[in-house]
């Protein structure tokens, strides 16, 4: 396995990756907002260089990732992402991986400059997560929707039912992804086994590739569905760091109190949030900004 070479950095400093990283501790809501902004900038920078990839979902879920990795929620060691005691995050919506790469880079799990290799031949930052490439923090390959959540449930079973430890497992799916039946198999199983160590996050941006979710195939009401499948389901504002942390705290309480119920956090978000011209536009699901668009985006995110 060989890393792709990082291309020499662009002339425009806005487009350059910086070297700042953030600490894995409970940051304040204001700090989380700043971290999310940096994650968003890195998403734009990565995609502009890659020339292909998904902008909308990653930008829209940046606040969720900031809260998860920097809100004192997930327990992990950026210097050793194989640490046996770590909590695990499984990205079921594999196409959203730029936000995870940016988050891991900002946590110091791997060199930030490597973000420039996204989607290039030989990179550890594959177009969809490739575990074989060995990027620290990539727990599993994904990219076929509706599979990651089952993998996460399997991990939570290993922790709770086999190893009897106190680790937690988080998994994020999209809302279009809820159309995959396998998601409901995973959900039914998680509640059957009372996996209170499992937290399912739904990025409810109401968008998918072909349009608004209710137009493509209606998945609403999401909360009733998740509740009827046995989840303690709460809705949060996916762009409010405090509300997100509140949601995750709710899950942690479910776990530590031995509630016997898995938690589902429905995070209401806007696709492309943070970049005005992308905001709430499903057309931005799967394309990168051009150079000019990237500059505009980075100025807005400054």
């Amino acid at each position, binding site marked *: 396995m060989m890393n792709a070479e990082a291309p020499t950095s662009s002339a425009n400093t806005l487009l350059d990756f910086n070297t700042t990283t953030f600490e894995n501790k409970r940051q304040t809501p204001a700090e989380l907002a700043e971290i999310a902004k940096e994650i968003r900038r890195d998403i734009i920078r990565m995609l502009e260089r890659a020339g*292909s990839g998904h902008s909308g979902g990653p930008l829209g879920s940046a606040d969720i990732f900031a809260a998860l990795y920097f809100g004192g929620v997930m327990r992990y060691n950026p210097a050793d992402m194989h640490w046996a005691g770590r909590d695990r995050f499984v990205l079921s919506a594999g196409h959203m991986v730029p936000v995870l790469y940016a988050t891991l880079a900002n946590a110091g799990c791997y060199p930030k400059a490597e973000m420039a290799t996204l989607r290039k031949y030989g990179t550890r930052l*594959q177009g969809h997560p490739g575990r074989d490439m060995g990027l620290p923090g990539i727990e599993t390959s994904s990219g*076929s929707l509706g599979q990651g959540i089952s993998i996460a449930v399997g991990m939570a079973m290993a922790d709770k039912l086999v190893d009897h430890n106190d680790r937690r497992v988080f998994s994020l799916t999209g809302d279009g992804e809820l159309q995959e039946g396998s998601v409901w198999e995973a959900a039914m199983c998680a509640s059957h086994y009372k996996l209170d160590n499992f937290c399912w996050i739904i990025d409810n941006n109401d968008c998918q590739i072909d349009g608004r979710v209710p137009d*493509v195939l209606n998945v609403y009401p999401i909360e009733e569905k998740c509740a009827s499948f046995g989840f303690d389901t709460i809705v949060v504002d996916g762009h409010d760091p405090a509300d997100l942390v509140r949601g995750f705290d709710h899950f942690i309480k479910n776990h530590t109190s031995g509630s016997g119920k898995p938690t589902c956090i429905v995070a209401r978000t806007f696709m492309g949030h943070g970049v005005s011209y992308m905001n709430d536009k499903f057309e931005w699901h799967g394309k990168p900004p051009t150079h000019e668009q990237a500059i505009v985006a980075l100025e807005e995110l400054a």
Partner: protein
Amino acid sequence: MELHGQKPTRHGFGDGLVDLGEKHDNVVVLGGDITGSVLTSLFQSRWPERFFSIGIAEQNATTIAAGLALSGKIPFFASYGAFCAFRNADQLRISVCYNEANVKIGGGHAGISVGPDGATHQVLEEMSFLRTLPHMTLLVPCDYTEARKATVAMGEMVGPAYIRFGRSPVPHFTTPDTPFEIGKAQVFRDGNDVALVACGAMVWEAMLAAEELAKSGIQARVINAPSIKPFDHATIAQAARDCGCIVTAEEHQVHAGLGGAVAESTAKNAPVPIEFVGVKDTFGGSGEPEELMEKFGLTWREIVASARVAMQRRDHGSTGVRAIKDVPTYA
């Protein structure tokens, strides 16, 4: 054969579907949330009342197609092959093939030339079982025009059928007059020294390889084999007998796809040395389409080298034992 620029085979599918829609009222199309990518969007905008979005639910879309077919419709469902051949494999086997339902599947993003999306999206394994399913027809057109013809042909035959097409622009060189028939292979270039049997984007690479071989006085026969099932045993047997050795080339694993079909067919009719050009039992990865084709050994250069080995084996026998595959290629 002349090059008319580059065009993705998926456009042939999209345009062929519109051709069909014009001719047949009962053609309906199911969307799997990537209608733009697989060009079913063209049909959708012409006939919105004959288009149904099913969302990201390939199992359901396939089985709904079976229900529509059992109601006299000619339903097409298209998605990426990774999802509309694998996610729905049980549905294809039972509700479509065992049912002999008149369902048509369009499997896009086939092969490594998908590019930067990476391994999950680069389907390289589906031809193996699609050609093993009873009642299934499997077509792998070589360029835009053939894809368009194949789409119309599969819509007009009765029974389950699957068409495999790619994402990236590839050489466009057949014309409306180039023969196409389900169950038939065509000789695109004549020669008696070695037969190059290819499908999909590898057909043009085989043409280039033949040209290169001709420079050393080797006359290669180039066979376009778009109909993987039913398979044209006669054309392959003839080539084996005339040339005495074969190279197969496909954007699929070296196992059980076109190469497998040719190996089985020749073993049954005219056993000859075969060299297999394809992906060598490894998953793909991110990169630019052309770069990946190069790195994974899917170019005319690999075909030329394989042709020389095949002829060498025909003339001097094989030594040692080799696996079909070699070492993995990615990174």
